[in-house]
């Protein structure tokens, strides 16, 4: 009786830690639709590693590899994206931090109207890799050990993020569609995770916001012209809720404004668009998380409006040295 309960409780933390550590958010392609998924900024144990494999199928009148969402009126583009990445949680000045790199790859094709001509275009290969640094400013301290994991509740958490994409992706100035953007760009943002109610797997509810500003360098060879884009303001919002301990869902929204593009000084229209979507997540096991979602712009009936929709499926594998070792020992008993 008592002895077995004791050993049972002693082992309990490991199962808990396993479940807690590897819930690192699905590393959604931040380039694709310039939006990260719900629960992306949840924190976990420092030293946790994650590798995402993300596949997107998208359609619309903009190149999903371009976060500026330069609208090509009348275009009908289809893209298949795969994104591989790596992320690692670490501690920076006692705060939770994450460094990540994402490398988009895939193909895009479609009809593009440009210069009063409609042409078919396609591209394939690698896009611009993006680096992201995230540091938490308000909220629980970094989870430096399993005790911290045990006690973690986000409460009201606010981070600061800095993204930078490096223009080394495949780019052909003669093509209207490209995977690389041939310019530096990045983002500054302040992700917020607001815990609503208890932090109990199966009953967690969060409201998550990501206000951010994208900054774009100049593409001096945009089909021989110069492309400049004003900063674009973006707010992502997610209302997430656990359905079970392993399954959750989210209502997603996004608003973009600004981002006026100029081609050789000729200004286009400023973006002012809304998109909504749904996401379902499922934790397959302690190491694997599956996410599926759909999102579409809604106020997109005018020719110059951003039109984009897409399905996404992602599989994220996470691991931590302590957890893996402890599990090996337990399974060997």
């Amino acid at each position, binding site marked *: *009786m*008592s002895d*077995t309960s004791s050993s049972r409780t*002693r082992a309990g*933390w*490991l199962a808990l830690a396993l479940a807690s550590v590897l819930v690192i958010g699905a590393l959604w392609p931040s380039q694709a639709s310039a939006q990260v998924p719900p629960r992306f900024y949840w924190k976990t144990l420092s030293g946790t590693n994650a590798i995402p494999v993300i596949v997107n199928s998208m359609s619309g009148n903009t190149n999903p590899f371009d976060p500026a969402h330069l609208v090509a009126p009348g275009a009908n583009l289809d893209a298949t994206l795969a994104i591989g990445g790596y992320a690692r949680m670490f501690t920076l000045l006692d705060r939770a931090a994450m460094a990540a790199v994402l490398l988009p790859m895939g193909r895009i094709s479609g009809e593009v109207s440009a210069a009063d001509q409609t042409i078919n275009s396609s591209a394939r290969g690698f896009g611009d890799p993006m680096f992201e640094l995230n540091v938490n400013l308000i909220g629980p301290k970094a989870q430096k050990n399993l005790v911290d994991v*045990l006690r973690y509740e986000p409460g009201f958490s606010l981070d600061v993020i800095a993204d930078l994409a490096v223009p080394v992706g495949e780019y052909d100035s003669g093509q209207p569609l490209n995977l690389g953007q041939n310019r530096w760009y990045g983002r500054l943002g302040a992700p917020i995770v607001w815990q609503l109610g*208890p932090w*109990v797997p199966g009953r967690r509810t969060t409201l998550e916001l990501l206000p951010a500003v994208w900054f774009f360098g100049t593409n001096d060879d945009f089909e021989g012209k110069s492309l400049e884009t004003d900063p674009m303001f973006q707010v992502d919002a997610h209302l997430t809720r656990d359905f079970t301990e392993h399954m959750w869902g989210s209502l997603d929204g996004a608003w973009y404004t600004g981002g006026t593009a100029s081609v050789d000084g000729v200004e286009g229209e400023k973006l002012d668009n809304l998109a909504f979507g749904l996401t379902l997540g499922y934790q397959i096991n302690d190491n694997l998380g599956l996410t599926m979602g759909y999102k579409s712009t809604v106020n997109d009936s005018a020719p110059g409006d951003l039109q984009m929709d897409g399905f996404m499926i992602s599989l994220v594998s996470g691991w931590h040295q302590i957890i893996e070792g402890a599990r090996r020992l337990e399974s060997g008993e």
Partner: protein
Amino acid sequence: MNDTQQRSVRARVTRPGNPGRLLRTMGIAGMVAALVAPAIGFAADPPRPPNIVIILGDDLGFADMGAFGSEIATPNLDSLATSGVRFTNFYTHASCSPTRSILLSGVDTHLNGLGNMDEWTAPNQLGVVGYEGYLNDRVVTLPQLLKEAGYHTYMVGKWHMGKAPGQIPAARGFERDFSLLDGAGSYWDMTNFTGAAPRSVFTEDGRYLTELPKDYYATQTYTDKLISFIDANRGDGKPFFAYVAHQAPHDPYHLPRDWRSRHVGEYDKGWDAVRQERLARQVELGIMPAGTELSERMWFLPDPVLLAPASRAFLGKRMELYAGMVENLDFHVGRLVDHLKEIGEYENTVFLVFGDNGAEGTDLFKMIAGSPGTRDFLFAAVKWSQTHPNAWGDPGSYVAYGPMWAQVSMTPFSQYKGWLAEGGIRNGLIVSGPVVKRPAGSVNHGLMHVADIMPTLLELAGASYPKTYQGRELPALLGRSWSPMLAGEVESVRTSQDVLAWEVFGNRAVRRGDWKLRWQVRPFGKSEWELFDLATDPAERKDLAAERPDKVAELAALWDDYVRANNVILPSRTPFETMEKQMPQRVPDDPGFPPLTGKKQFVPPADMMADPKP
């Protein structure tokens, strides 16, 4: 003058009065009274007996109140202690319904119906008088007699002494009640533990409840109800007896969310360290004498120093919740005390505070929930499966703190609830109020027993224990009135020749003076008599049976007397019958053994370090 003022005046007038003392001092006082009687005539009302409040903590441990050395914040209970007296040598029984049956009847369990817990009645005890599993009608209850003596009688909380209409609080002398009839259950709703009995049963004023009040939380609701009972009868000038049988801090540790996180990380240091700290405070407070040793850490418990920090935190969180339970209990006791002060009744109220047995170290939920594939496992899966630590305290969670923390609650004693080691039956007692004439805040070490409460309170109320009740001859009271001791006339109501004895689940013990003879099933005992000198070894570390066979024989004979006098039938089946085969082999707890676990990394002298040669 309004009612409140009248009662305040009456309380002040009657405070010096004490029926028991008056009776004893009748020789002198009677003559004085005869001389002055014409002068005082009808100038004052006859002294009103004091109100009586018994606050019973369910599984509250000896060392869980601040006044008994705990780090848990219990300012309201401590306040009763500092205005009254703490007792360190007070015995209950080893489990709840047996203790409660003695408390309310003053009669030994084997006569009053709780010779065994209803849940564990053995085949050879079925149908035997004294083993009915409820408080039988061969005894009269304390509230029945107090009611006849002019008291209002109120009960809130856990009953656990019968559910049938003739067995419930209203049938056993309580004029008003709000009661959980089961031994435990959810603090939030009517959910109970098994598929066979899925709903807790409650009564209010003798009627079985179909549902609970809105915003029900056991400890709060019990307190609210009691306050409403008291207020409803305030105007009639009668004293009241309130039996406040709190469910807290019995597991599951259901607790409002804002009470759960007041001690985060404080118990990560582990049970050994907390026990040492509590013992040090007990010595400082005079609860235990200097030089007292802690009991052994039970052999199946890990040395917390050897556990990973996360394991200590995980297990420590259970104790954090338990501390919250005790603090929440204290808070609601404070509400009751404050209310009595507001209505002018506090000064004329006697409080008794204690736990009903040792702290709970057994995994009750495991015993209740069954194993996969069983009916009760299925029930638990639906109703009791909120296992995540962040859900602990919520409806559907079942948290208990385990044997390691139960030992902390029973510092410095050995073992816990269900057993007849000191950790199972010895508890801290506080008595305060106008009846107490000992120095405020003092500590007394006289030998006491829960059976003493019935004669003490009857005397206090000016009542007496009858020979018969409703035509039935009553068994003799087991205990002794504390009146002379509370009055400061003696240090103890027992001499070194008085005998106390216990039996439950087949375990048995007898104490006379400082000597205690104990028989417990292996591995908690030796399945043979063990002998302890509690004066020098309250933690029962050293079995002296081999050294003192004369004392063993003497006490064993007293045990036989107890069996004959009290209808003791040892059970043919017990909850512990297979325990020895399930538990690790018992080994001594030798600090520092094995040295292997304490070996640190060897660091050679720096000047002798060298790189490997090629």
